[in-house]
């Protein structure tokens, strides 16, 4: 069986490896760099910048830990970006190495679909190559969405991709959109020394999260002196003398050296030949698929950001695995109810399952348990006491249905809850599992106990 995959991001490259593991002859086509947005312009590069920003923050507060650092501590953005590039290139090599070990052919060029069994590839040197396959998996991903009237110029109006490759730290930056990307960059730029203002049209920052989590994050933004304006839209943008002036819907104007637009991502479904074979797309251009990741055209699958929905690297990877298995005769589906997600703010945010408002909307009666990190000895030892864990269980069955964490290492802690939800465990199952002391994980045990009014370190209510 020959499988051709369009796009080598976290969806496509994972699909390629799984298909090869199952014995297929795999060709993958990538017109930029393997690893896709996640590795080259998203998850990994932002995390390397965050690592620099967090070390900077700690160094600046070294005194609190009883350390005396002499001399000035300041970010060197060129070296920070260089480090980021090095981390990325190491990971890119890693994926290429995996391709080689599984005998996957990777073609660098731009592929379009000619027929359900044939891709046309414009190689980087301009030559054309055709690849025939029994099955095609489309994994072309997404790109930063811009405000059509004020498109990215890479100088004053930046996309998240541009922001990862700056050569100077702006004295001030205006961030449009206080979602995941906007908030992560807000903490990065603030620590590097920029004056940061975020503009959000919704009532809260990270509005995809449980509202209690948003409220706590908003306080952390205040602590870092990051300004957040909510319920406002951008009406007009004026660029002059190398600075940006923005007029807002509430009549106010804001000036900044740079503007970062992080209002979401647009799917890459154009110019890949979907029309040649009649693949159905939705209103925003997303490729329509069923739960087996099949498009309406037999033998053609689509996965990851290009199918819309939650744009998460790990979801794309899982969809890639499912598509590869199904393309090779399998019959599996993705469980969309249990998808953990993480936001790398300070502190981190992570969640899985239902938010309280989703449960209410679905008419599910719930019990909730909350636990503050500041109650844990470990959090104090680490000097990271902000944040909380909120667990949501179904009232009648006690089955865990949602977990929301804001606090140190939230992105690592969330998986205990994900495992519990995926396997239908009860909050009592978490509560009676011994958790090692002193750890942040104790917080999950206490939050689970708190659902039953039995958290040891919470005063009587």
């Amino acid at each position, binding site marked *: 069986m020959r499988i051709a995959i369009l796009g080598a991001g976290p969806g496509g490259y994972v699909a390629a490896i799984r298909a090869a593991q199952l014995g297929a002859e795999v060709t993958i086509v990538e017109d930029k760099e393997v690893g896709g947005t996640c590795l080259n312009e998203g998850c990994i590069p932002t995390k390397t910048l965050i690592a620099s920003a967090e070390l900077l923050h700690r160094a600046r507060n070294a005194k609190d830990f009883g350390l005396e650092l002499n001399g000035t501590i300041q970010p060197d953005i060129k070296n920070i970006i260089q480090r980021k590039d090095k981390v990325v290139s190491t990971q890119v090599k890693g994926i290429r190495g995996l391709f080689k070990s599984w005998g996957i052919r990777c073609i660098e060029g731009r592929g379009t679909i000619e027929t359900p069994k044939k891709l046309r590839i414009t190689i980087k040197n301009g030559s054309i190559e055709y690849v025939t396959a029994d099955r095609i998996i489309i994994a072309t991903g997404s790109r930063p969405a811009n405000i059509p009237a004020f498109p990215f110029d890479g100088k004053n109006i930046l996309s998240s991709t541009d922001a990862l490759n700056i050569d100077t730290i702006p004295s001030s930056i205006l961030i449009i959109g206080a979602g995941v990307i906007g908030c992560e960059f807000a903490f990065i730029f603030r620590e590097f020394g920029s004056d940061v203002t975020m503009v959000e049209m919704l009532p809260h920052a990270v509005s995809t999260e449980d509202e209690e989590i948003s409220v706590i994050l908003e306080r952390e933004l205040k602590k870092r002196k990051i300004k957040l304006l909510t319920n406002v839209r951008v009406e007009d943008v004026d660029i002059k003398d190398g600075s940006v002036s923005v007029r807002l819907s509430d009549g106010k104007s804001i000036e900044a050296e740079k503007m970062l637009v992080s209002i979401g991502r647009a799917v890459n479904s154009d110019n890949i030949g979907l029309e040649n074979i009649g693949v159905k797309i939705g209103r925003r251009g997303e490729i329509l698929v069923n739960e087996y990741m099949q498009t309406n055209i037999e033998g053609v699958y689509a996965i990851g950001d290009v199918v819309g929905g939650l744009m998460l690297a790990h979801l794309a990877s899982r969809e890639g695995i499912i598509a590869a298995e199904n393309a090779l005769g399998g019959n599996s589906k993705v469980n969309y109810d249990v998808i953990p997600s993480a936001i790398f703010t300070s502190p981190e945010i992570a969640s899985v399952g239902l938010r309280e408002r989703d449960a209410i909307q679905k008419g599910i009666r719930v019990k909730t348990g909350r636990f503050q990190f*500041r109650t844990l000895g470990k959090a104090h030892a680490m000097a990271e*006491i902000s944040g909380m864990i909120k667990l949501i269980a179904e009232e009648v069955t006690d089955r865990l249905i949602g977990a929301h964490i804001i606090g140190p290492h939230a992105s690592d802690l969330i998986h205990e809850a994900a495992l519990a939800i995926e396997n239908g465990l009860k909050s009592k199952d978490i509560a009676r599992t011994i958790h090692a002391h002193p750890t942040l994980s104790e917080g999950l045990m206490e939050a689970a106990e708190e659902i039953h009014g039995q958290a040891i370190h919470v005063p009587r209510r």
Partner: protein
Amino acid sequence: MNPEDIRYHREHTWARLSGNRITIGITDYAQESLGDIVYIDAIEPDTDVEAGSEITQIESTKATSPVISPVSGTVVEFNEELTDSPEIINEDPYGKGWIAVIEVEDDSEFNDLMDVTEYERYLEEEVKLR
């Protein structure tokens, strides 16, 4: 010692009257119970507040707690010193650790608050037994 020239609210805030302005803060008992204060949310001027409702939140190493306004009115000033040094509240809750100044229409709510004797009895008889 709790000062005698101010009034007290059962949610452990205090009020000092001067003309039509009332300065508020949290009591010594409150700061002691909270432990080391690490952050207080700034209050925007012109915010309208109701007696008995939350005016801001205080974060200590132990807990995040609402600050309950002892009177109704409009906030005219927030103690900006607290933004960078919230620990002043622990050090001097009735002095430099004041939180906000509220403009009130009349002093009737102020007069209804407990005086120092009543507040100390309240602490002894109700609060500390809990």
